[in-house]
Structures are given as C-alpha cells and as structure tokens.
C-alpha cells in the first residue's frame, strides 16, 4: 500500500473510531432521517399521493442536512483543537485528510441512506415509478454533498456556534429555492436562475424524476452527476482552505 493510501485509510479509521466513542451522535445520524420520514408519512396520512411526491425529495434533503452539521462541527474541532496544525506539520497531504473524512462520513452516509430508503419504500409504502436503487444513489450523493459543504464552511467558522449558523445561512436558501415548495419555473426569473446554480435543486429534480419516470433517464444521471460534481468541487475548495502556514 502506498503512503498516501495508508494515511487516508488511517484518517478514515480514526474518524470512525471517534464516532464509535460517541454512540449518541451515531444514533442521531442514522435514525433522525428515519424518524422525520415517519413523521412525514403520517402527516400526509389522508393524502398518500403527497407523501409519494414529497417523500423522495425529502429523502434527498435529510442526509444533506445531517451530514452538513456533523462534518462542519467535526472539522471545526480539528481546526480549533490544534490537531489540524499538528497534522499539517506531519507528512499528511491535505487530500489525505479530506479523503479520509470523505471515506468515513461517506460510509455513514451510505448506511444512513440505506436505512432511510429501506424504511420509506419497505415500511412506509413509498411508491415511486423509477428504480429504488436510484433513490438510494441520489440520497448517498446528497449525503456526500452535505459532508463536503460542511468541511468547506468549517474554514469560515471560528466557533461551533458559528458553524451551526451556517446551516440556515448556506442550506436553507437552497432548500427554499430547490423546488420543494414551489416549482422552480414559477419563481421570479432571478431566483429561477439562481436556483439553477444551486446543487440541491439538482438533487430534488433527480428525486422528482425518479418518482414520476420508470427506468433511468439520462436526465436523472445528469442531475446525479451535478450533485456529485458539486461535492467534489466543495472538497477541492476545502483543500484550498487548509493552509500549512497561518498568521
């Protein structure tokens, strides 16, 4: 195994051990999205058609929110606790660190999306025209996007209070504009154009298409590629914010 791979895997294993020491966070990571889906299902008890329409879209949003919160605080602790400075004086590449985080939280995102999709389809009777594995794939991509954005914004927060505030600042506007509440085409033209460059719009579009269309269309794959690409872009920008030399 080459040195970079060893350091990346060691970092992923370390992040997972930290999670293992914190079972309450793991439980929240895995079960909060499930709980919210159950709430949603019985909220629309009288309108199963509405749950079928909104369920998948929120299945894409929950992992994003949860992963964003956890990773932004985890990375902020790394910065403020001095361990980031220690690691950057060691032979650890910035990408080794970020990919280590991505692997560890990616595994959690995978598990979270598997649980939530299985619950939604198997237990709550969510009915979509497209394949269930596509629903799962988009949910994982959303979890990864949340993680990458969380790593990135941690660079701009000095305290955990600030990091938590980035959730309403960075994610809520995307949530409002993503087409969940109003069709993006019906928004003021400026907002529509803005929503075109926000990654969450593509996540929700993809989920919408999976709900309505059987089979996997090129459009869904394109949406998925935009979400995954945005996650990679956010990771790359995150790498830029890791400076070995600081004031």
């Amino acid at each position, binding site marked *: 195994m080459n*040195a970079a791979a*060893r*350091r990346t895997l*060691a*970092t992923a*294993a*370390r992040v997972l*051990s*930290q999670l293992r*020491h*914190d079972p309450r966070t793991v439980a929240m990571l895995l079960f909060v999205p499930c709980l919210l889906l159950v709430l949603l299902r019985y909220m629309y008890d009288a309108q199963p058609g509405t749950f079928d329409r909104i369920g998948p879209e929120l299945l894409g949003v929950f992992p994003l929110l949860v992963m964003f919160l956890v990773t932004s605080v985890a990375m902020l602790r790394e910065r403020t*606790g*001095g*361990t980031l*400075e*220690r*690691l*950057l*004086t*060691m*032979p*650890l590449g910035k990408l080794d660190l970020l990919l280590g985080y991505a692997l560890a939280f990616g595994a959690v995102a995978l598990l979270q999306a598997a649980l939530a999709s299985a619950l939604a389809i198997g237990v709550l009777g969510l009915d979509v025209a497209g394949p269930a594995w596509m629903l799962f794939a988009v949910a994982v991509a959303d979890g990864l996007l949340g993680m990458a954005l969380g790593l990135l914004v941690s660079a701009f927060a000095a305290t955990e209070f600030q990091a938590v505030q980035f959730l309403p600042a960075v994610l809520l506007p995307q949530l409002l504009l993503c087409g969940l509440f109003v069709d993006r085409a019906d928004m003021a033209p400026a907002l529509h154009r803005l929503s075109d460059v926000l990654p969450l719009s593509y996540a929700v579009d993809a989920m919408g298409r999976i709900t309505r269309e059987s089979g996997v269309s090129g459009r869904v794959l394109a949406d998925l590629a935009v979400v995954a690409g945005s996650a990679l872009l956010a990771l790359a920008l995150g790498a830029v914010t890791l400076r*070995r*030399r*600081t*004031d």
Partner: protein
Amino acid sequence: MMNSSAGPADGPAISAEGLVVRRGGTVVLPGLDLTVERGTVTGLLGPSGCGKTTLLRSVVGVQRTAAGTVTVLGLPAGAAALRDRVGYVTQAPSVYGDLTVGENLDYFAAVLGAPPGDPDRVIAQVGLDAHRRTPAARLSGGQRARVSLAAALLGRPELLVLDEPTVGLDPVLRQELWRLFRELAAGGATLLVSSHVMDEATRCDRLLLMREGRLLAHDTPAALLAATGAPDVETAFLTLVRTAPEAAR
C-alpha cells in the same frame, strides 16, 4: 537509531537570519538572527507574549513570515522533507479528546509511517503506560500534555520543538521530563524548549533570552551568569533588560 536522511549532517540544526513576523499589523519578530547547534538542549526563555511561540512556529514552518529565512536541518523551514524529521508540541495539547491515548498515538504513528512498536515506546517514555486505554479527555491537563509530547516523539525526530512542555506539571514529573530531554539530546537529537519558568534554564546547554521579539542573550547558563554577575537566570534576565532597554525596543 536516528532518522538518517538528506541534508548536510553537520551545520546547525536551526539557523534564522533577519526573521520578521507581523501579525495583525503589529511586528512580533522585528528581525531575528539565531543559531541552534545539533545535539543540544536550547532553552527559549522570556515573558509571556514576547514572541516565543511565534518563533517556534516559524521554525516548524507553520507561521507566515514577512521576511528573512529560517533553515532547519539544512532545508527551508516547513519543507516537505522535514515533516517526519521535526517533532512539534504546541502549548495547548493537540490530541483527540474523544480517542484513547493508544488510539491517538496509533493514528499519528500511521500518519508518520513510524515503526509498529513506536506508540508503546513513546507511551512508556512519557510514563503513561497505565493510561493506554483512557480517553484523552478524561486525563488530567498534565497527562494530556504528555500525550501530546509522546506524539511528537513518534518516529524519533532529529529536532524537537517543544512549546512550554512542562507547564502545569508537578516538580517530580518536570524533573523526569527534563531527564528524558537530556537522554534524547545524548542520543543525537536537538531540542528547542520554550519556558517562562526561569529556573528550568539550568537544565539547558544553551539559553535564548527573549523580550519583545528580540534576543537579549544567547549563551550557556554559566556564561550568562558570569557576564551579568547575577546569582540566577531570573536576575540575569532583569539585569539584561535594565542594561539594554533601548535595544529591546
């Protein structure tokens, strides 16, 4: 037993020339020259806020500098080739509070590519054998500081940069750590240790007395006392401050 690696094996461990550091508009180091010989324990002494940490950070290569050069083991400070040859202990213990002592050191050892038995070796060196399975957050402040020190000892670095490693430790532990520092130097390592406790000065080969970003003296403890006629290093420091008030500004 030491890392054998590139760069001239002779020459000083650290040399700085005209080092200038500004932070937030104020000049912290106004132009500092410094040489630290290999295999020595050099004490960096001075009051809180005089620029000790900034100087140490410049040596490790994590401080943004405005001018001047810092050369470490024959290479520019912070060079990639130095990252497994220099160990750095920050003032606040930088370890993962939610991981055990063993997990912390296993991870840092993996990052460094240190040999398999290294975590156990350094845990023994800092006297934490009984706490291998204790989460770092549940240790006392002094114990956590020793975990941080142990992490810097991984991979047997040629240069150790220690920022106030004995702060908050009881006298017995302080003595044990200084014995460890002497052992490491006897094995060929170079140590640069900052402290604001002047009575630790006598344990060093060389002393750097620092005030307001400038070096007031760079000498052996004995020579320093002889030159100032002072009975101890604290008095010597005060004498130097009094006799060179203009130079210190």
